[in-house]
């Protein structure tokens, strides 16, 4: 395995790890923690404000999660492109040798 191959593999693994981190963050339910404000302070302004925060957190977590997953997917895609390029380059070189062209 050459040095270039090592980077491609590491990038692919990192992409998977990044995607996984994004998925796990997406599963963190911050918004649900604030439902008990209504039980604690009935009739208060805070109940409505807590709903606003819950909605904001739901959006923020979802966007962060999606963006992180996209980053991971992009890294994996980059690794695939690099690997495909490497394969193509290797194939090109192989074709050149097989056609009898002599190196200098």
């Amino acid at each position, binding site marked *: 395995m050459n040095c270039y191959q090592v980077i491609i593999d590491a990038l692919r693994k990192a992409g998977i790890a990044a995607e996984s981190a994004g998925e796990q963050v997406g599963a963190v339910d911050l918004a649900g923690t604030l439902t008990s404000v209504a039980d604690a*302070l009935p009739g*208060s*302004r805070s109940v409505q404000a807590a709903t606003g925060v819950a909605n904001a957190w739901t959006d923020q977590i979802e966007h962060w999660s999606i963006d992180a997953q996209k980053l991971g997917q992009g890294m994996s895609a980059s690794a695939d492109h690099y690997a495909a390029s490497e394969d193509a380059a290797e194939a090109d070189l192989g074709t050149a040798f097989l056609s009898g062209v002599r190196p200098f």
Partner: protein
Amino acid sequence: MASYGDMRRWQPGPLDGAEQQLKVRSDTLPWLADDLSRASKQNGWHGMAADAAAIKRAQLADGMEHIVAGVTAARTALMAASDGVMGLKNLVSDADGIAQAHGFSISDAGEVEDPGLPPDVPAEQADMMRQEREKIKAELLDRVQQILTRAVEIDNSLADVLGRIGRGEIHDGGATTLAAAAEAGAAQGITTPQIPGPPPNPPTDPGAGDHGSDPWYARGDDLFMKDLAGTAAMFADGAGWTHASAHLRHYLDNSGTDLTVSPDEMMRDVDRFRGEVDKTTAAEMRRVAAEAEANGTHGKPIQFSSGWKGEYLGPEDSKDWYYAMGGVQYSVTGVATVHPPEQPGGESRIEMDYKAHLLDRYNWDGGKQTEIGPVTITDDSMAEMHRAGVAQEFNVSGSTDAKHYAGPVPPPGQRPELPAPPDNRDGTRTDPGRK
């Protein structure tokens, strides 16, 4: 706005629960964000794709710092609200207990209901007992008012922080690490309590009646009286009763607009009044200290309000203030932090910033008369001018400058060394408004 009945149902437990749940759930965020950061930062990866990934990584890190700052701000605010509700429940319990002990009840709307005297009260004691019950009722109403005020403060503090998180106004303080962002968020979850304003105006006596309610053809005497009263105002000014003069002139100018007066000046001029205000302030210090002891809120700033207290300034106190105000309502509000005794059995210490407030309705509704210079002024003739529409009653109010006290909590009966009112009388002849 939450009602007194809502306050009875307020509970700190769910707020603590929310804070704990938030802590547990958010604890995973920093290390997941670190995972992502580490993964997307690959040694040996260069070029345009690597640069684009670095930009996205930085955006994600910044986004997570804002989320974490918001979460810690919310946790801090939830804990503060929980502490506040714990103290509030004690106040509600005290008020309900006093009501029950005296046969009163407090409705969910905060009304104090008195079933009246028991049927077996001897007739000769009925008046005295009725007066006693009026006093208890007034105290209960005062307590209910304080509870509602405190509840609004607790609710506003939490709602304001939550509102800022919801609107994305909690910043990460320029943090470059999640720990620093969390710290910045926590600092924004505390709203520093301010000195509360005066309590809502209490009901005033009916005064002379409706302004301008007399028919126009009956106003001749009143216009003559108005001239006389103007002369009295001039004499009052000449005698150095400058507040009395200014208030009378304002009555005669018939605008009915509010007039501002400085309680600091009144406290400086009337030592007995200052003593009463200081006594009320000391009582509040003891109450707040007892509350901090009971609720374990030592070291945390607590807002307080004494509610309105009545005081009568007689001519022996100051002729100027007697003619200017007579009976007044005053209150003391502030923010106090109680520190526990350094040694068991020692004195608690208190640090507080506070103001005294004053309120009076300038009206003439008694049956008295007074001589100012050559002019005899009767309550009836002055009240008649208001009904005739040639003079008008008005509210007089004002607050002292903020004062600071740091020292021991005074034991009952002891007047603490509170700051003296400033001696900043700039005008001549003791007139603060003199031009």
